[in-house]
């Protein structure tokens, strides 16, 4: 079954580009802090102004992630969440929200589940794209093809260490947007943006006009604003996850409030 309708991710970037705004792209994790709450969070964060949500499927060996997301993954896995449940959460969220959703997980979760099956079930649940941090272009073709077959965007990573050659290859292959890693390192909130970020984004811009989203390390409204000025999307991961982990009772409201504040700063 080939899905032909325009992908929600392409749609949103088209809209934002038209209004010269940047996308706010928070990261949530299936099963964190528990399964139900992660569904409420999807909805409340969307309603608070998220343009796209990255929805992580927790993994036992998250080697691109820093301590915050590692710890969250461990907690989430104890809830019994798995790929099927994660897809189911998206399906349920789709009853309320139309915000694009990109699932984020490690390649083994896709490989073991079965490439076609993963793509098919994801697409059917209302997932729009997949982000896989340990799948560089050299190894991405089988998955890219399976994803394309189901109208899923396979979103690829660009890093400051990528040569221009590699950036071209990545840009060419990536769908939806390009995930630009702000720094050499793992996920995790940091207090300052790397000084060479503008140069790096400039380098990527030179090889593509696909949307560029920047992630890794962004936590403060001012940082989001600065990134919004040079990129098409601002990814907020660990900062939001740690806020959610701080108080489970109030996390839905707190997350919404935090996203509104970032939204405000970005649009200011």
């Amino acid at each position, binding site marked *: 079954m080939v899905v032909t309708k325009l992908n929600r991710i392409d749609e949103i970037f088209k809209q934002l580009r038209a209004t010269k705004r940047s996308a706010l792209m928070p990261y949530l994790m299936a099963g964190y802090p528990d399964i139900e709450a992660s569904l409420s969070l999807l909805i409340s964060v969307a309603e608070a102004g998220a343009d796209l949500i990255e929805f992580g499927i927790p*993994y036992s*060996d998250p080697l691109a992630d820093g301590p915050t997301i590692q710890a969250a993954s461990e907690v989430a896995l104890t809830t019994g969440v798995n790929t099927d449940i994660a897809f189911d959460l998206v399906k349920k969220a789709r009853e309320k929200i139309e915000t694009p959703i990109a699932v984020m997980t490690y390649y083994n979760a896709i490989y073991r589940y079965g490439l076609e099956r993963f793509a098919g079930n994801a697409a059917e649940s209302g997932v729009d794209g997949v982000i896989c941090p340990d799948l*560089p272009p050299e*190894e991405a073709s089988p998955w890219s093809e399976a994803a394309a077959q189901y109208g899923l965007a396979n979103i690829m990573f660009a*890093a400051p*260490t990528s040569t221009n050659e590699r950036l071209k290859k990545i840009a060419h292959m990536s769908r939806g947007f390009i995930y630009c890693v702000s720094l050499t390192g793992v996920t995790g909130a940091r207090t300052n943006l790397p000084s060479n970020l503008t140069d790096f984004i400039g380098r990527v811009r030179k090889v593509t006009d696909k949307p560029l989203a920047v992630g890794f390390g962004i936590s403060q409204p001012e940082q989001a604003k600065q990134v919004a000025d040079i990129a098409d999307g601002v990814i907020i991961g660990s900062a939001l996850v740690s806020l959610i982990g701080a108080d489970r009772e109030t996390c839905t409201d707190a997350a919404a409030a935090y996203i509104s504040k970032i939204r405000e700063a970005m649009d200011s």
Partner: protein
Amino acid sequence: MQHVLPDERGHYGEFGGKFVPETLMTALEELEAAYARYKDDPKFKTELEFYQRTYIGRPTLLYFAEQLTKHYGKAKIYLKREDLCHGGAHKINNTIGQALLAKRMGKKRIIAETGAGQHGVASATAAALFEFECQVYMGEEDTRRQSLNVFRMNLLGTEVIPVTSGTRTLKDAMNEAIRDWVTNVETTHYMIGSVAGPHPYPMMVRDFQRIIGDETREQMLKIEGRMPDYIIACVGGGSNAMGIFYPFVGTGVKLIGIEPAGYGLDTGRHGAPLTKGDKGVLHGSLSYLLQDEYGQILPAHSISAGLDYPGVGPEHSYFKDNGLAEYSSITDKEALAAFQLLSKKEGILPALESAHAVAYLEKMIDKTSKDDIIVINLSGRGDKDVQVVADALGVRL
């Protein structure tokens, strides 16, 4: 048959590859280029051979185990004595090689992962000798169980960083080392300890370890005037096995890799991905591994810490699927018995890892005859395991 893998992309058939964050891809390309440049460089080769000879103590002996042979009364049994290497295991063959390469690449710092500490100590040793800054990641659980090895690394000038994520053991230490590498990729060389990890590691580590097989071949021809019939080696990540197998691939010699069956293959508490695992991606390459139906990695178990790993080098997966080697497994209990047998018969305490290879004799020797020749790779010495063996046998020290 000439075996010419991996291909350009680091694949062994469907196995291998480079499944790592984009941040590391350039570093892997650089490493690949540097390795390609130096591996046949006469100066590099001379220097490597110099340290193999004058520091590691190569060639190691190929020892005819007369008592053990008498005990079974079947095939002649030889032991390749990697336990006599400086440091007590084959691991140093690889770390000296990688250190010499890292020096040429202008790296100042080395990081490594370690389980029980064998590769950590071997890395720390190479780092001391070549004046690298060195940090070793080790599961917090393991730092407690192996505190002597932690201190040993400290004495060698290496800092050991306890890893508190996940199962707090080897696989998590490797995750953490990769995270460090992602962060410090420009100054740092990541010294992987087996034929695992993303390309070019499985190839490079194999090449640094194949000296075991090259020597064995030459020594065997000299002693017996012919090739052996069987070569047996234990398989954790698979470096000592690949090292001794590689020069014999396609020659007709039966190559047998032994995985740890832990409490038994049916208990689910083992470390035998080739025997009981499924294909998947771990630590940068596609290979057989222990995982659940959703691809979550399952913890391994073996009495021998060096075999306690849920993955295996991708080339072994290729060997298995293509019949270039066979793989079998040995339980904790069987390994313990072999540990005791070799100690008593030959006065040689094998590493518990190597004891798995020795234990396989029980399963295969009956089908051999006195004219057959078996070589067992004695990958390390057992002094490090004496406490573990005592505990397992219920002996209070």
